[in-house]
C-alpha cells in the first residue's frame, strides 16, 4: 500500500466573479477544486472562455480570487501580503503562453534569468552568473545566449528562456499556460521533451494548461476538462481519453483533428456556441447545447460525481 501522494497545490471552491455593471456579474470561475500531487502533471483543458487561464492566475493570486482558498505546499496563500507572496513565488512559478509578450524586450537574457536569483535567492553576482550558465545548459541553450535580447532569439529559444526564468528560483510547482501554443509543431515536440526531462530531473509538479488535446495526452498524468468556468470531468489521462463520459468532453475529443490517414471520427455535435458567462442560470452548464439533455438538467447544476477509479463527471445522465 502506497502512502497518499503529497499534495503540493490544492484549490477549494476557487471562484472569480467580475462585476459588469449594475448587479450583473460575469462568472469566470466557479468553485473549482483541484489537487496537484508532487511530481505529477495535471492538465487543465478547455476552449476559450472556459476559465483555465483565470484559474492559473487566481491560483497564484496574480488575479485576486473572489472566493475559495489555495494551499501551496500545505500553506494557505489567501491572506499572504506582498512579502509573503514574494516568498511564495520561490515555490511556484509560471511559464506564460507568449514568450514575446512575457519577456521584457529591453532586458538581455542574462538580466531576465538573474532577476529571480537576485530577488528570491539573494545570490551575489558571481554565484548568479554560475547558476545562469547552468540554467542555460539545462534548457538547451548556451552561455552565449545570455548576452542576447529576446528579439534576437527564435520563438522556441524564447520559450526556453521563459522556462529558465521559471526554474531559476528552484520551485517545486510550475504552472505552464499554453507553453507550446505559439510554436511550430517541430519545435513543439522538442519543448515537450525538454519539459518532461526537467520534470524528471527536478521532481517538478506541473499544472499544464492547454487547449491542444494531443499535447495533453502526451504530457499529463491526469486531466481536468473545463467548460464555462467549472470542471465537468476529471480523471487519469488514459481513462478520460479512452472513456470520455461528459457530453462536452465527448464533443471536444471527437472534434480534435488527427494527423493520420483514414481515421474515421464519431463526432458528437453540440448545438450552438458557448453561452454568455454573465449571470448563468442554476442549471447544467451545457443546457441548450447537449444532445442528451433531460428536464432535470435545467433545475440545478450537477456536481462532480465519482465514476470510479478517480474518474469524476458532472453529469448524472451519462451515469444513469
Amino acid at each position: 500500500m502506497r502512502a497518499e501522494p503529497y499534495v503540493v497545490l490544492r484549490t477549494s471552491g476557487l471562484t472569480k466573479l467580475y462585476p459588469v455593471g449594475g448587479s450583473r456579474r460575469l462568472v469566470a470561475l466557479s468553485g473549482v477544486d483541484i489537487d496537484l500531487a508532487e511530481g505529477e502533471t495535471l492538465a487543465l483543458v478547455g476552449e476559450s472562455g472556459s476559465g483555465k487561464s483565470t484559474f492559473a492566475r487566481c491560483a497564484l493570486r496574480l488575479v485576486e480570487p473572489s472566493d475559495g482558498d489555495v494551499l501551496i505546499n500545505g500553506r494557505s496563500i489567501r491572506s499572504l501580503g506582498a512579502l509573503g507572496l514574494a516568498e511564495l513565488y520561490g515555490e511556484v512559478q509560471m511559464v506564460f503562453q507568449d514568450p514575446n509578450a512575457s519577456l521584457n524586450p529591453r532586458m538581455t537574457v542574462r538580466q531576465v534569468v538573474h532577476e529571480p536569483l537576485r530577488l528570491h535567492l539573494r545570490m551575489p553576482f558571481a554565484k548568479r552568473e554560475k547558476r545562469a550558465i547552468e540554467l542555460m545548459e539545462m534548457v538547451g541553450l548556451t552561455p552565449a545566449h545570455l548576452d542576447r535580447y529576446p528579439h534576437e532569439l527564435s520563438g522556441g529559444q524564447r520559450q526556453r528562456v521563459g522556462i529558465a526564468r521559471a526554474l531559476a528560483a528552484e520551485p517545486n510547482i510550475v504552472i505552464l499556460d499554453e507553453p507550446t501554443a505559439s510554436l511550430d509543431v517541430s519545435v513543439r515536440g522538442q519543448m515537450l521533451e525538454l519539459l518532461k526531462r526537467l520534470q524528471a530531473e527536478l521532481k517538478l509538479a506541473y499544472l499544464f494548461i492547454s487547449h491542444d488535446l494531443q499535447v495533453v495526452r502526451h504530457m499529463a498524468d491526469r486531466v481536468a476538462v473545463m467548460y464555462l468556468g467549472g470542471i465537468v470531468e476529471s480523471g487519469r489521462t488514459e481513462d478520460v481519453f479512452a472513456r470520455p463520459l461528459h457530453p462536452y468532453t465527448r464533443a471536444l475529443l471527437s472534434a480534435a483533428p488527427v494527423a493520420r490517414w483514414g481515421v474515421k471520427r464519431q463526432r458528437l455535435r453540440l448545438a450552438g456556441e458557448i453561452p454568455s458567462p454573465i449571470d448563468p442560470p442554476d442549471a447544467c452548464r451545457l443546457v441548450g447545447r447537449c444532445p442528451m439533455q433531460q428536464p432535470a438538467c435545467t433545475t440545478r447544476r450537477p456536481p462532480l460525481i465519482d465514476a470510479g477509479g478517480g474518474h469524476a463527471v458532472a453529469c448524472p445522465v451519462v451515469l444513469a
Partner: protein
Amino acid sequence: MSSPLLEIEGLSGSFRSPNGALTPVLHDVSFAVPRGTVTAIVGETGSGKSLTALSILGIQPPTFQRSAGRILFDGRDLLTLKPEEMRGIRGRRISIVFQDARAALNPVFTVGRQLADVHRLHHGGSASRAMKRTIEALRAVSIPEPERRARQYPHEFSGGMAQRAMIALAALVCEPELLILDEPTTGLDVTIQAAIMELIGDLVRERGLTACLITHDLGVVAETCDRVVVMNAGRVVETGTTEAIFTRPRQDYTRRLLAASQLGETPEMIEA
C-alpha cells in the same frame, strides 16, 4: 482529364530590405491545383506558404520581388495581367478567406452591408436583391437568424461566426472558381474548427468549387483535402495525394513533420 485550374511554375523571389539587400524567400515553387479538388499547402512558419497564396491574387507585400516564374490560372499567366484585368479576376474568379475574420471585416459597416456591397459589385442588381442574396448566403453557412445577424457589426460576431460570414462572402457571394483559405481555423477552438472545416468540405462538394487550403495543421489536412503540397523554407518539398503523403511520405522533411504532428501516437490510441 482537363488541365489544372491553377498551375504555379518555378515561382522564385526575394524580400527587398530598405538598404536594397535581397533575401531569397521562394525558390522555384511549382505545383498544380486540379479542378474540383481541395489542395492543401502545408508548412511551418517561414515556409513561404502564405506568400505563395498571396502572390496568386497579386496581393503580396510590396517588398516582395519576383525573379522568375508563372502563375497560370485557367491557362492564363496572372503575372502578365494589367491591374484592371487582375481586378476582374480578384474576388470574382479567385477569392480568399483570411485567418482572422473579425480583422478582415470592416468594423464600421454591418456584416450584411459588406456582403451585399460585394454582391452588387460582382453581380450588379438592386440593393434589396443583393441583401436578399446575402441573407441566403449567411443561412447557407448555418448562421442562425441570418436576417438579424446581417444587421449586426463584426464585433457582435464570435470568431467562429465571423469566419462563417467570411466564407459566405468568399465562396457564395463572390461565386469564385478558386477559393483560397489562408489558415481559416487557426485561433478557433477545436469544436468550432471542426464545424468550419465541415462547412468548407460541403461547399466544395456541393458547388464544385476548387479550393486551396493554406495550413500548418496536418490534422485538418488528413480529413478534408484531396492533395497536399508540403513546403519548407521557400521550397516545395513534396506533393502528392493526401493518402500518399500520409502513408508513404518520400521526403525526410515530410516524415519529420508527420511525426511531430502525431506526437508519437499509435493508431490504436486514436481508435480507442
